[in-house]
């Protein structure tokens, strides 16, 4: 299913889920959540940052980090260049520092539009730095995930990003600093099977696609029937993997509560 609201006649859009026509102003005011069916359309990293953290508090870091093509993988250089050109960014992950109700946090926000948010060397490095900054400063880490998984075109280097980012999360944990990951549509495969799933708290937007392998692969591998809500956030919630499904408009408040309580001791220097 495409997750992109389609542009319709001037000032109107069509919901990617229920196909109803939405007045653009309403759509934006409702944080790109369909007012009819509640479908959470994908957000760009900058939009997500804007609606989540204190106004003007975000400071971007690591913005020049970009993947190379060490394997000289077929067509990779072209794809990467096109993504950089189109998204005006070097990677799907935007990382830096921000504040939530005045409390400092170390953040990274994924943008699925950049090569499906796949995790290559640059992506892994930015996540790692985000978690390391949290461990060092004692400021809670918050990562918004959106990814199809590891970036195949960087081969084993990409697989190692699973280990590297998870190691950084462990360091954060050892330092007693909270790490909250937020699943957005979609959070899959190598990202789900590494740092994203070992956060202290895992939140998810409603109906986000969340799973280990593509549905086709799961069906081939399995014997039982596939539940209707398979690989949705709700399935993850009902199977103990997600702590809370949080509607987009409640996300900021929920994060503030968590940062205050879980980060309380560190943030007060105790």
């Amino acid at each position, binding site marked *: 299913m495409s997750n992109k609201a389609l542009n319709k006649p001037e000032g109107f859009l069509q919901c990617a889920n229920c196909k109803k026509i939405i007045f653009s102003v309403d759509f934006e005011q409702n944080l790109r959540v369909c007012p009819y069916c509640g479908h959470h359309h994908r957000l760009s990293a900058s939009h997500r940052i804007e609606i989540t953290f204190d106004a003007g508090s975000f400071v971007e870091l690591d913005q020049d980090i970009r993947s190379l093509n*060490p394997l000289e993988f077929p067509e990779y250089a072209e794809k990467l260049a096109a993504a950089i050109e189109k998204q005006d960014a070097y990677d799907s992950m935007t990382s830096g520092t921000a504040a939530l109700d005045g409390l400092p946090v170390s953040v990274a926000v994924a943008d699925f539009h950049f090569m499906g948010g796949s995790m290559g060397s640059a992506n892994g490095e930015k996540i790692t730095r985000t978690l390391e900054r949290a461990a060092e400063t004692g400021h809670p880490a918050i990562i918004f995930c959106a990814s199809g998984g590891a970036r195949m075109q960087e081969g084993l280097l990409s697989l190692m990003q699973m280990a590297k980012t998870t*190691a950084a999360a462990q360091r954060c944990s*050892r330092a007693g600093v909270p790490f909250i990951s937020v699943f957005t549509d979609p959070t899959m495969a190598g990202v789900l099977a590494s740092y994203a*799933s*070992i956060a202290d708290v895992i939140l998810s937007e409603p109906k986000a696609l969340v799973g280990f392998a593509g549905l086709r*692969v*799961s069906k081939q591998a399995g*014997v039982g029937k596939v539940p209707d809500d398979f690989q949705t956030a709700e399935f993850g919630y009902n199977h103990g993997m997600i702590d809370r499904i949080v509607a987009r408009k409640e996300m900021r408040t929920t994060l503030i509560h968590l940062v205050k309580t879980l980060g309380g001791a560190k943030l007060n220097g105790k």
Partner: protein
Amino acid sequence: MSKTHKEWERPLNELEDGIIKLKEVSKKEKDPQKREALEAKIADYETRRDRYVEVMYSNLGAWEKVLVARAEKRPYTLDYIQAIFHNYVELQGDRNGFVDHAIVGGPAMLDGRPVMIVGHQKGRNIQERQLRNFGYARPEGYRKAIRLFEMAERFRMPVITLVDTPGADAGVEAESRGISEAIAAAIFKMFELTVPSVSIVIGEGGSGGAIGIAASNRVLMLEHSIYSVIAPEGCASILWRQADRGADAAKALKLTANSALEFELIDEIIPEPIGGAHRDWPTACANVKGAILKHLGELDQLSPSAIYEDRYARFRKMGVYEDIFGS
């Protein structure tokens, strides 16, 4: 469709079958002269066989490595355990309600010192293959591994892991019990350890399922093993929508031990006997044992906190990227 390892080795196997038959004939031959002639022929065939094997294995391409890494007669985890360790007690149980036979493990002695072993286990016959889910580990396998890692830390035992999986189980059941979380938690736990850990890719190092038990201070690969972010067939199917172009994908993915060493993702390549580990188990096991002892010996010099930091630093530097202005 691509060849299997068996098909690929067919000329060689036919030659070997021929040798066996000749030997039988020779044994029954009463006439000394004829026997001598037969034996000369056998010796000739054997020389040819040896040269053939040497040539065949001296410069394997990526896809041939895939075939060899998957070879049915290759020694598996329990074969290495049997040959290298003593007093092994296999421990089951994820303590969460399930059991997985695609990952095995337990404490054992290595030349008089206690170690904790964890490894993927494939099956050799059809019943065992089903029992072991064809080496596709389930969430409970990783959770068992976590238990064993914790025990190793508590009792100050080095951890040895043997990696040999086509990938983790991606089925509906595995998903419902959190295969992703289980893999992530296993990696996480390995990074907590302050006891030394050594991982060896002995066959297939298949994506998340492999790294789940391979976050060690030292990661070694057997000469003909492979280590990849995705199965070549899966890659081909995504890239070109042709699963049978696995050979092309294998090449593109650079999944050989040489490439892994070149990108500084592994520490050493353990040589295999000529013709591959499946042709000479004792030599393969001896080489693996030697490598474990060597690396454990080096790691023994480090304090617990240095072990932890060494492992972190090892993975921290992995990746090839450009950072124009730094930051």
